[in-house]
C-alpha cells in the first residue's frame, strides 16, 4: 500500500532521516518507534508531503506521491498531529468538518458522519458547539481523531495520537481505538516513543534510531530475535512484561501436558495472554488449575502455575533458536 524507499532528509547538518526504506501493507498497522528526535515525525510528514524529502521516493498504491498535488494527496490521507493542532477559532463541529468542507460534501452528509464518529469516540453530542479550549486534553485528542477519520480515508497517519495523556486515560483511549472497525480496516502508520503502546497496537514495529531503521518486524520478532544490542537495550526493563503480554496460551499449546480432565469453565487459548493467566493465579490463591480450549484443534488443556512457567521457558528457547 505505502512503499518508502531510500528516504533521506537533512536539516542543516542534522540527518533527521537517513536512507530508510519500508512498506506498509494494506490494512496493516505499522508503528514507528524510537527515542525523541530519531526522525519519526519527519518520516511521517514526508509521506503526506508536509516535508519534502532530499532523496528517496514514496508511492501509495504504486503511484509516486511527488506527482500528485500536495493538497489533493493530503485530503485522501487522515493525519493526526503530534500536538493535536485543532483550530482555536472553530467549534468542535467545524473542526471535525474541515476536510468534508474541502471535499464539498453536502451539509447533511457531514453532520450524519460527525454524529456517527462522536458515538464511536465516546464524545457527547453537546460538545459540538464548544471551542477546543473548552475541552480537556483527552477530549481534544478524540476530536483530533474524529477530524482525521471523518472522510473515511484508506490511510491514516498518526503522530503520537495518545501522547500527553495520563496512563489511565491513555490505556482507555487506546483500548477504544483498538476496538474500532476503522482501526482494523485501515492502513495505519503510527508514531510513538512508548514501547508499551507500540506493542499493544502494532502489527509490525519499525524501530528507529538517529534517522536509521534498526529493526523492522512483528512485536515477537523484536522481543525474541532482536537484531542487535540497541534493540535489546531499548526493551530493557520491559522485556518480561512485554513477553508475558504478547505470548498466548495458544502459543504455548505444544509445551503444555495433555490433561484428560474435562470442564465447561474454559477460556479461549488465543485470547488468554501469559500475563492475564498469571494475574488470575495471583488474584485468587485457591485456584490450582485453569482450563483453556484451543479453537483451532478443538482440544482442551488444563494447567497449574508450574506447568505454565515451564511451558513458557520451553517456548522462549524455541523462539530464540528458530
Amino acid at each position: 500500500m505505502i512503499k518508502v524507499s531510500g528516504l533521506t532528509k537533512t536539516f542543516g547538518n542534522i540527518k533527521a532521516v537517513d536512507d530508510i526504506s519500508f512498506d506498509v501493507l494494506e490494512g496493516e498497522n505499522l508503528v514507528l518507534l524510537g527515542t525523541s528526535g530519531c526522525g519519526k515525525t519527519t518520516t511521517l510528514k514526508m509521506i503526506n508531503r508536509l516535508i519534502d524529502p532530499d532523496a528517496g521516493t514514496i508511492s501509495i498504491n504504486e503511484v509516486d506521491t511527488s506527482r500528485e498535488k500536495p493538497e489533493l494527496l493530503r485530503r485522501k490521507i487522515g493525519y493526526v498531529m503530534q500536538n493535536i493542532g485543532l483550530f482555536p477559532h472553530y467549534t468542535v463541529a467545524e473542526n471535525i468538518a474541515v476536510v468534508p468542507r474541502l471535499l464539498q460534501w453536502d451539509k447533511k452528509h457531514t453532520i450524519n458522519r460527525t454524529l456517527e464518529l462522536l458515538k464511536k469516540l465516546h464524545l457527547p453530542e453537546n460538545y459540538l458547539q464548544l471551542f477546543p479550549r473548552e475541552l480537556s486534553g483527552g477530549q481534544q485528542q478524540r476530536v483530533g481523531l474524529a477530524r482525521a477519520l471523518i472522510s473515511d480515508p484508506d490511510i491514516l497517519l498518526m503522530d503520537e495520537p495518545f501522547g500527553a495523556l495520563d496512563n489511565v486515560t491513555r490505556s482507555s483511549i487506546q483500548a477504544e481505538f483498538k476496538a474500532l472497525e476503522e482501526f482494523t480496516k485501515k492502513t495505519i502508520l503510527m508514531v510513538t516513543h512508548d514501547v508499551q503502546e507500540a506493542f499493544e497496537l502494532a502489527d509490525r514495529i519499525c524501530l528507529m534510531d538517529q534517522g536509521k531503521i534498526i529493526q523492522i518486524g512483528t512485536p515477537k520478532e523484536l522481543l525474541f530475535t532482536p537484531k542487535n544490542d540497541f534493540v535489546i537495550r531499548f526493551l530493557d526493563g520491559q522485556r518480561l512484561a512485554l513477553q508475558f503480554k504478547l505470548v498466548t496460551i495458544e502459543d504455548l499449546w505444544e509445551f503444555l501436558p495433555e490433561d484428560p480432565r474435562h470442564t465447561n469453565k474454559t477460556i479461549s487459548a488465543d485470547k488468554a495472554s501469559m500475563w492475564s493467566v498469571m494475574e488470575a493465579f495471583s488474584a485468587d490463591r485457591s485456584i490450582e488449575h485453569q482450563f483453556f480450549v484451543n479453537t483451532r484443534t478443538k482440544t482442551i488443556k488444563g494447567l497449574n502455575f508450574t506447568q505454565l512457567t515451564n511451558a513458557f521457558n520451553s517456548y522462549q528457547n524455541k523462539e530464540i533458536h528458530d
Partner: protein
Amino acid sequence: MTEQQQTLWSFMYEQSDKLLRQTFQHLGLTFTSLLLAVAIGLPLGILIARKSNLAGSILGIAGVLQTVPSIALLGFMIPLLGIGAKPAIVALLIYALLPIIRNTYTGIVGIDRSIIEAANAMGMSKMQILFRVELPLAMPVLLAGVRTATVINVGVATLASYIAAGGLGEFIFGGISLNNTNMILAGAIPAALLAVLLDFLLSRLQKLNGKKLKKVLLTFPVIIVVLAGFYLWPNTYTTKLRAGFTPEFMGRQDGDLGLKSIYGLKIGTTVISDAVMYKAAFEGDLDVISGYSTDGRLKAFDLRILKDDKGIFPPYYAAPIVRESSLKKFPDLEQVLNLLAGKITDSVMTDLNYRTDYLKQSPERVAKDFLLKAGLYQPPRNGQSGVIRIGSKIFGEQYILAEMYSILIKGNTDYEVATKTGLGGTKICFDALMNDQIDFYPEYTGTGLLVLLQPSPELVKEITKDSHRTYNYVKSAFQKDYKIKWLMPIGFNNSYALMMRKKQSQSLHITSITDLTKYLAQK
C-alpha cells in the same frame, strides 16, 4: 462658566451647518484614507509574513514615513498632488499604513505554527489557509492596528484644513488665529469625541468572535465606503472662479464676512493654509486668494492685488509691542527698537519677503543686508547686561523683523538677545508676551484691534477708516488694558488683500473687488 458654555452651545448651534459639514468631511477623510490603507497595508502585511526577509525593510520604511511630522508630510504632498482632498488622503494613508502593516504581520506570524501545519495536513490550499485560518486568527491583532490607525487619522485629519481639504481643523485653526475659544472648541470637541467614539466601537468589534465578527466585518467595507462617501458632501457651491481663504480670514468681519456683507461677493470658497495658498493660486488650483499685501510670494507668483474700493480691510501697520516692565528693566531698549521706525515701505517689505520666501535666503542674511544698506548696521558688542527675549509669529516677515531687531540690539546696546521665533499665530504670541515669556514682538495695528481688543463693529468701522486713529486707539487701549506699549510704526502696511493671477485679472478686466463681484454675478 455657564456663560462660556452657553456661548459655546450657541456658537455650535449657529454654525451647525458648517459643523456638520466639517464633521462629515472629517469622517470622510479619515475613512477614505483608512480604507486605502487597509487595501494597501493588509496585502503588504501578508506578503512580509510570507517573505520574512522583506519584513525589516518594509516595516522600516513605513516606520520612517510615520515619523515625518504631519505638517511636513502635507507640505511634501502639495508639489505632487496639489491641494485639497487628494494630498490629504495620501498623507493620512501614509500615517495609517504602519499600524496596519505591522499588526497584520505580527498577527499572522504570531499564530502557532502547529495550527498552520494542521491546516496544511488537512489539505487546505494556500488561499484557504489564508482566509480560513490565518486572517481569522490574526483578526484581533489586525483590528487593534486598524483601531490605532483610525485614532491617529482622526487626529491628523484636523491638519487637512491647511491644504484645503476641510474637516474639523477649519474651526480649530480658524479659532486659534482668531483667538476665538468657542470656535476652537467647536472643532476640537467633536474631533476628540469622534476619536473616542471610533476607538470604542472598534474595541467592541475586537471583542466579538466567530460568526458575529464575520457578519460585522462583511458590513464593515460598506460602512467605510458610505463614510468615505461623505467626503463628497457638497463642500461649497461652485462658481466661475474658485477662492481659497485662510481659516483666519474666513471668520473675520474684515475678511470673508465683510466681503459677503459689504461687497455682496458670492464665490465658491475652500479653506486653505496660508503656506500653500499662493502656490495654489499660481498653479491655477485657486483663482482668488486672501493674501497679505507685503507678501513676497505676491512678486514670486506674479499675482496682483485687487483694489479694496469699499475699504473693508483695516490698516495693518507693523510696530513692535513691548511689555512696559521690560522697557523699565532695559532702559536702552525703546530707543533701539525705534531705529527701524518708518524705515520700511510696502514695496521694500514685499521685496524682503520675496528674498526669504522665494529666493530662500535666510532671514538673518536678508535682515543684515537691509541694515547694511540702510546704514543701521553695527557689529555686535557682545555685552552682557541682560537678555532680551524677542518673539515672532510663524511667518517670514516676522522672522526678518525679529532678526533686524536682534542685530540692532546686539550692535547698539550691551544686551544679549534670545529669539523665540515661530510662536504660531497671534494668540500664542500675545499670550507669551502677557505671561512674560517674551519682552516684545512685532504686531500689526489691525490685528491688535480686531483680534485682541475686539471692540464693537460700529467702533471698528469708525476707527479703521483712518490708519492714525487705528494706531492711536490700539496704543492707548493696550497701555490701559495690558500694560503693553506700541512703539513707533515700522512704516509698511501689511493688510489683507484679495489677489488674483495677473494674467487672469487682465483678461477678465478685474482690478477691484467690486469688479470681481460683478463678474461673478453675471450669468
